[in-house]
């Protein structure tokens, strides 16, 4: 601490004088991962709410009366296929093939839209049968949890369209590659959340 006296004349320095430079976007992936982890906590809360309230039917319809597991299986297949096609988009992106990347993104988007359509059909069917979010605590927590996941998929599709336009205009430039990698993490993360949804909500709800 002898050097403190000598530098005291110039005033104390509380920061690193020379921070080594970071390349632009070098911390984006870690930052986006941290966002995904916080998103994971949102879903954990909603899963916990469903776990607590999922058996409170208020003499209303139970999961066994409402869920069509065949439809859920088709839905799960759509999301799983969209995951692998997004993987193919990433592989073609690495090779710098713009056309193939766009094509795979388009296929992914179609699978995402199919997933959303089936989910909206299911919701509409349930509401038509009187199983609205207001009916019971089970239905409130069900619509909140599955609806939040569906909303994430919706925004993922909006993001995908945005990036397809970006790639069409500017090509696979460094910034676009970074954005596509972030969306890749987001999209695969949504598939991971869906594993929890179909297991805990649909399959275990039907068992209950």
């Amino acid at each position, binding site marked *: 601490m002898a050097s403190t006296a000598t530098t005291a004349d110039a005033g104390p320095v509380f920061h690193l004088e020379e921070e080594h430079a970071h390349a632009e976007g070098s911390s984006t992936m870690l930052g986006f991962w941290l966002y995904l982890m916080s998103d994971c*906590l949102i879903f954990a809360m909603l899963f916990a709410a469903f776990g607590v309230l999922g058996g409170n039917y208020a003499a209303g319809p139970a999961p066994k009366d409402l869920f069509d597991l065949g439809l859920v299986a088709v839905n799960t297949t759509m999301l799983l296929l969209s995951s692998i096609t997004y993987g193919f988009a990433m592989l073609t992106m690495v090779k710098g093939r713009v056309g193939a990347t766009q094509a795979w993104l388009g296929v992914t988007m179609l699978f995402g839209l199919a997933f959303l359509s089936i989910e909206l059909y299911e919701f509409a069917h349930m509401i038509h049968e009187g199983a609205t979010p207001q009916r019971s605590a089970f239905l409130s927590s069900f619509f909140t949890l599955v609806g939040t996941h569906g909303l994430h998929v919706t925004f993922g599709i909006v993001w995908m369209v945005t990036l397809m336009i970006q790639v069409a205009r500017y090509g696979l430039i460094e910034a676009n590659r*970074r954005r596509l990698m972030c969306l890749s993490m987001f999209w695969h993360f949504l598939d991971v959340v869906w594993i929890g949804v179909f297991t805990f909500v649909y399959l275990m709800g039907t068992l209950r």
Partner: protein
Amino acid sequence: MSAHDHADHADHGHGGAAHGSLKGYLIGFFLSVILTAIPFWLVMDGVIDNKQATAVIIMAFAAVQIIVHMIFFLHMTPASEGGWSMLALIFTVILVVIVLSGSLWVMYHLNANMMPGLHEMQQMP
């Protein structure tokens, strides 16, 4: 596979983010299909009579499938981002376990103990 990886790193060496390989994605997809199909089959066809056992088995399948997705689709390795993403993941998993197990445990006991008239009925002759 190694030649392909080298080509990837040559033009994309920065950032340290992995993209995976075609083989990795296909293995992940194949495993996911199996790990999804078996729980649906178990529940839809009622293969196991014991519901508790079925629930435990499909939860185990879900846990394995989540790990498969983490490895083959999200390319999580202990070394990615200098270990920080794994640290964040572990922290999140701990929080998720606390939230889920705590909520279910506390609310189950609350439900069981606060059932109106339950204790009075038991004490009746």
